[in-house]
């Protein structure tokens, strides 16, 4: 029997750490780890030392201190007596607003431009190429500044909207584009607004269920129900019916203006002349809006106090807070036959109003009042981010569509499928898989690029927490850490949500 020999035991030499593939990777990893730890240690040690030299500690307590500065765009109530934390929250919401608007608009623009760039029409495809190349190859900051400059320089001032001025409002005198921003009508809620909202939500769900039902019918019986028109009707018709039902019934109920020390049936104008000054107590919502329209329509000067409910407005009137009050039909009881104050109805009256009415912006003094002001800083940032990112998304969409081989549509055509159905059932589901991953990174880019708000003075989180708050409190380390963590968290949320979608639609192979 031959003696079994052990395999030759390799003797370990030091040079093997570098030249032997078995040890080489471990060596490299150990060296990298040591270097990394050293770098971190140096950073932290340096920070601690420097803070000590400056006599500072590491404390987030400043977030509870009074901020003391104003913010020109607030999505939640805020004033300068509130805390730095609250100011940061206002900034966070502003960042999320512009990021959301930008992502949605960029996607719409990108999809259109990407598809049109593939158009067989030479002019259309060239135009889209010019758009894409123009925006991709010029820095975003320049576009933001350029668009902001256009908006502030090329638009009229509010005073140009005065009678005889050079500018006028558009869309039935409801929208004013000025160098201070765009003024839009603001929705005001009346009776049945909650019901209307519920109906809108339910009918959207209904439209979705109908589409599912139509697909089920197709699968079960082979009958292809029309998809688009019934779904649209289900989504729209109930809301319109409910709107008009409320507008015709409770909405058309009378609201009378009642006044102290007036003669029955006196007009507001005459009453105002007799009293010297007019003040009116109104409830929130469409009643208040309608009273406002009534008084403004007569060109009267007056002051207005707004209350949460009709009863509260009437109570305030009885306490003498104002000399007129809006009284809906059926609520006259606490006022009539009251010996303390002589109350009588004026000749003018209005109605409770529809579930939704729009309060138009009106030029008053030096600027527009009422409505919603969308500042030029937001518009410029939004537009520039959307157009810039849209150009990148257009390329992603184009690549996605081109990535689906021509054979796929040919196979669908050969099976007798029409182009639109081929697009929906065969091409798009495949193109989306190519499009979504780079789309995620474009959304992340847009969100982080929104910090270029600094160029146009948009009050995002970088401007509040990462700007004024840091300057005032000297907590730059804490502030920048929080700012970094916010952007990190937002990015993780966006990419997490998109990854869920991506995983659900991934191609299965093997």
């Amino acid at each position, binding site marked *: 029997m031959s003696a079994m020999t052990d395999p030759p035991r390799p003797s370990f030499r030091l040079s093997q750490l570098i030249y032997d593939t078995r040890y080489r990777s471990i060596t490299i990893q150990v060296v990298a780890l040591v270097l990394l730890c050293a770098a971190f240690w140096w950073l932290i040690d340096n920070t601690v030392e420097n803070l000590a030299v400056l006599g500072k500690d590491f404390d987030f307590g400043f977030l509870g201190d009074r901020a003391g500065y104003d913010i020109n765009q607030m999505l939640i109530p805020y004033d300068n007596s509130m805390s730095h934390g609250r100011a940061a929250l206002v900034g966070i919401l502003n960042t999320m607003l512009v990021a959301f608007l930008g992502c949605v608009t960029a996607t719409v623009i990108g999809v259109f431009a990407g598809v049109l760039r593939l158009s067989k029409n030479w002019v259309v495809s060239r135009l889209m190429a010019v758009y894409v190349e123009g925006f991709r190859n010029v820095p975003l900051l320049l576009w933001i500044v350029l668009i902001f400059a256009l908006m502030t320089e090329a638009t009229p001032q509010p005073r140009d909207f005065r009678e005889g001025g050079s500018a006028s409002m558009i869309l039935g005198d409801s929208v004013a584009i000025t160098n201070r921003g765009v003024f839009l009508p603001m929705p005001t809620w009346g009776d049945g607004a909650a019901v209307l909202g519920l109906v809108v939500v339910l009918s959207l769900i209904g439209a979705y269920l109908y589409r599912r039902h139509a697909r089920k019918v*197709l699968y*079960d*019986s082979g009958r292809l129900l029309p998809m688009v028109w019934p779904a649209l009707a289900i989504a729209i018709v109930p809301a319109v019916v409910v709107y008009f039902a409320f507008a015709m019934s409770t909405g058309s109920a009378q609201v009378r203006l009642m006044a102290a020390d007036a003669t029955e049936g006196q007009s507001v104008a005459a009453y105002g002349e007799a009293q010297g000054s007019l003040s009116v107590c109104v409830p929130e919502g469409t009643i208040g809006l309608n009273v406002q329209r009534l008084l403004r329509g007569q060109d009267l000067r007056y002051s207005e106090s707004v209350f949460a409910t009709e009863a509260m407005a009437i109570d305030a009137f009885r306490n003498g807070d104002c000399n007129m009050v809006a009284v809906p039909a059926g609520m006259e009881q606490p006022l009539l036959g009251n010996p303390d104050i002589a109350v009588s109805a004026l000749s003018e009256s209005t109605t409770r109003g529809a579930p939704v009415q729009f309060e138009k912006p009106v030029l008053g003094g030096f600027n527009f009042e009422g409505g919603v002001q969308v500042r030029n800083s937001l518009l410029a940032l939004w537009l520039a981010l959307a157009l810039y990112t849209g150009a990148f998304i257009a390329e992603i969409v184009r690549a996605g569509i081109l990535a689906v081989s021509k054979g796929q549509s040919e196979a669908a055509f050969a099976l007798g*499928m029409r182009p639109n159905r081929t697009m929906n059932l065969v091409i798009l589901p495949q193109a989306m898989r190519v499009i979504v991953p780079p789309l995620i990174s474009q959304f992340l880019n847009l969100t982080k690029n929104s910090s270029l708000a600094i160029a146009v003075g948009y009050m995002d989180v970088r401007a509040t927490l990462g700007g004024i708050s840091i300057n005032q409190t000297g907590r730059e380390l804490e502030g920048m850490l929080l700012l970094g963590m916010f952007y990190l968290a937002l990015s993780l949320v966006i990419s997490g949500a998109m990854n869920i979608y991506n995983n659900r639609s991934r*191609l299965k192979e093997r």
Partner: protein
Amino acid sequence: MADPAIDANVTPPRMEVSEEIAVQITDMNKWYGSFHVLRDINLTVHRGERIVICGPSGSGKSTLIRCINALEEHQKGRIEVDGTLLSSDLKNIDKIRSEVGMCFQHFNLFPHLTILENCTLAPIWVRKTPKKEAEQAAMHFLEKVKIPDQANKYPGQLSGGQQQRVAIARSLCMKPRIMLFDEPTSALDPEMIKEVLDTMIELAEEGMTMLCVTHEMGFAQAVANRVIFMDQGQIVEQNEPKEFFNNPKSDRTKLFLSQILGH
């Protein structure tokens, strides 16, 4: 050619060919820009006929059969499929496409759908077949091509030969009266060629009208009623397989056959 897939000594099955005309092509011409791809093509295919089209690459054979179901547009001449004139009228195109099945060189299965969904997509959305019926029919045809157990897998999980058989089943689910094959085995390993050819032979034995672009000369000898040789956009020669291979008429055919069979 010593083709391992097909035993050429087997006598070709002589199925009945009816007098009914399935495809009639008259004086058809096609250009790609200024390039004249197809010149004066005249071809009559009877119901039940199995035609193999061969020729060097670039001779227009694929283009010819792609014109039959309007994947390519022809500029001159007439194509009539099952009595329906192929024009720019969408209704006619739809009608023809639903009667003509096609298999491609690269299978072109829909990778985002399962095998079963691949087979039921068109029956449900084009033929408006109820889903259950469509699935039963699909399973029937998948059994016929011998892969019913793969029904719930995705195309990427199947081998090339299996994918091509699924593609055949997918076409059959539309119950076509004519089948077009565009080099169905050119992208396959030699081992898989046989399983696809066997499926096609089975189909031929059932009397399906077939037009097949292929270089599988063994298949041509075993199954075809007629072999057509094309070169430079023209039909150079057509004949019964035996005559075609043993006694080619034109020099171009001789050269082609010597090259393809000689190696």
